[in-house]
């Protein structure tokens, strides 16, 4: 047996997946993670580090060495708030945040169940075009206010909702 083996679970790097990840990042205009030199500045600035122990630098390290499955299936990448600090400040112009977006996309594509409220958001968009419908909000005196009552115009919505839904469902099956 050649190459690297993770002795904790006997897993091996997945070269093909790694190649595919690099390809997809390139489509987005994001650089190959191989330049990461593990300074951990991303983790030091990560908004989800202290509370949820997200370590972008270790996501990058795993991806660089090819241990993708483990990362893709881990809960921790769902803690990323998408604040883009890691991307903004990376001295090597890497983008852990985009790497994690793709890994999460793959998890979903592979049939993984959507965590938290994502199912609702997705359902909302597919049925009405928005993640939520306009509600009647309460002011401090518990008085209800709708868009209409406030004199706000009706908001726009996809005119051809069937076409809209069909486009999204086609994309759900496509590779980036």
């Amino acid at each position, binding site marked *: 047996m050649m190459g690297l083996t993770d002795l904790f679970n006997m897993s091996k790097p997945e070269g093909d997946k790694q190649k595919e990840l690099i390809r997809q990042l390139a489509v987005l205009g994001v650089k190959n993670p191989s330049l990461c030199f593990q300074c951990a500045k991303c983790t030091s600035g990560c908004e989800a580090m202290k509370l949820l122990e997200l370590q972008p630098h270790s996501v990058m390290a795993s991806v660089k060495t090819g241990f993708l499955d483990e990362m893709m299936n881990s809960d921790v990448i*769902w803690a990323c708030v998408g604040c883009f600090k890691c991307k903004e400040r990376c001295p090597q112009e890497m983008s852990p945040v985009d790497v994690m977006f793709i890994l999460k996309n793959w998890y979903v594509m592979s049939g993984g169940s959507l965590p938290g409220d*994502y199912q609702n958001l*997705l359902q909302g*968009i597919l049925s009405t*075009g*928005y993640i939520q419908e306009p509600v009647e909000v309460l002011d401090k005196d518990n008085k209800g206010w709708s868009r209409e009552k406030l004199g*706000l115009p009706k908001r*726009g919505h996809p*005119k051809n909702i069937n076409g809209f839904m069909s486009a999204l469902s086609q994309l759900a099956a496509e590779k980036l």
Partner: protein
Amino acid sequence: MIRKLGFYPGCVMSAEQYAYEMSIREVLPDLGVELVDLENTSCCGAPLRSVNLLMQMYLSARNIAVCEEKGLDMFVPCALGHLSLVETKNRLNNSKELREKIVKKLKENEGLEYRGDLEIYHTVDLLHDVIGVERIKEKVSNPVKWKIACHYGCHTIRYTEAGRPDAAEHPSKMEEIIKAIGGETWNYSEKLNCCGAPLMVTHKEAALTKTGEKLKAVKDRGFDALAIVCPYGGRLLDGKQEKAGSTIGEKLDVPVFYLTQLVGLAVGRNPDRLGLNLNLSPVDRLI
């Protein structure tokens, strides 16, 4: 009139953060910006980045196309939406492959023509760069003389490569506007910290902790109020302040305003028309 722009409010503002929308509609025409409502809009896709990036880009691209049909440049007051639209525009310009894929789907399924050559403004650059601090200053009749902290929100300023309304590390346009309308403001270390909003989808407790910490910092720094430019942030910073306080075990009472509400007050608009009754944080204390 200096500009006529397609107005794209996005999900959160049009579904619940009415105060932001009201103050925008109340203030901008007075400052020379005519807003044109768009009819065929939808979510910008940003909440779906983690689920499917192609869907995200499709949704952003379709809203761009909807505005382009009107031949107008675009105003997107939501930071999350603004980044998603601008980023998608860049990505489709830089990747033939992506562009062909998305443009084809837009045409085939919804009959939309995508060009991707419009300008997309956010509240910060619209007020600061297009309208200009001087023009705002001229209109001020009722200066807001409070100490106001600025919160740009992550997506207003990051990431630089995408082209943002202000600088990533030392943004200053909101501060200039606050000073123009009579307020006092200064830099504080937590200025660039996240409000926690995106975490509401998966980690509510953590989200509220971040909201609480952000507001506590503003309070500890001696500010009277917090100015924001993002409905996603407003939902927590203004709407869930009490909950955020109890999460971190602090009593929080920071008045939170949308920047457009503050400008509206300063130029003498009727507080009712600025949606101030809808702010759940203790803004009454100051007005």
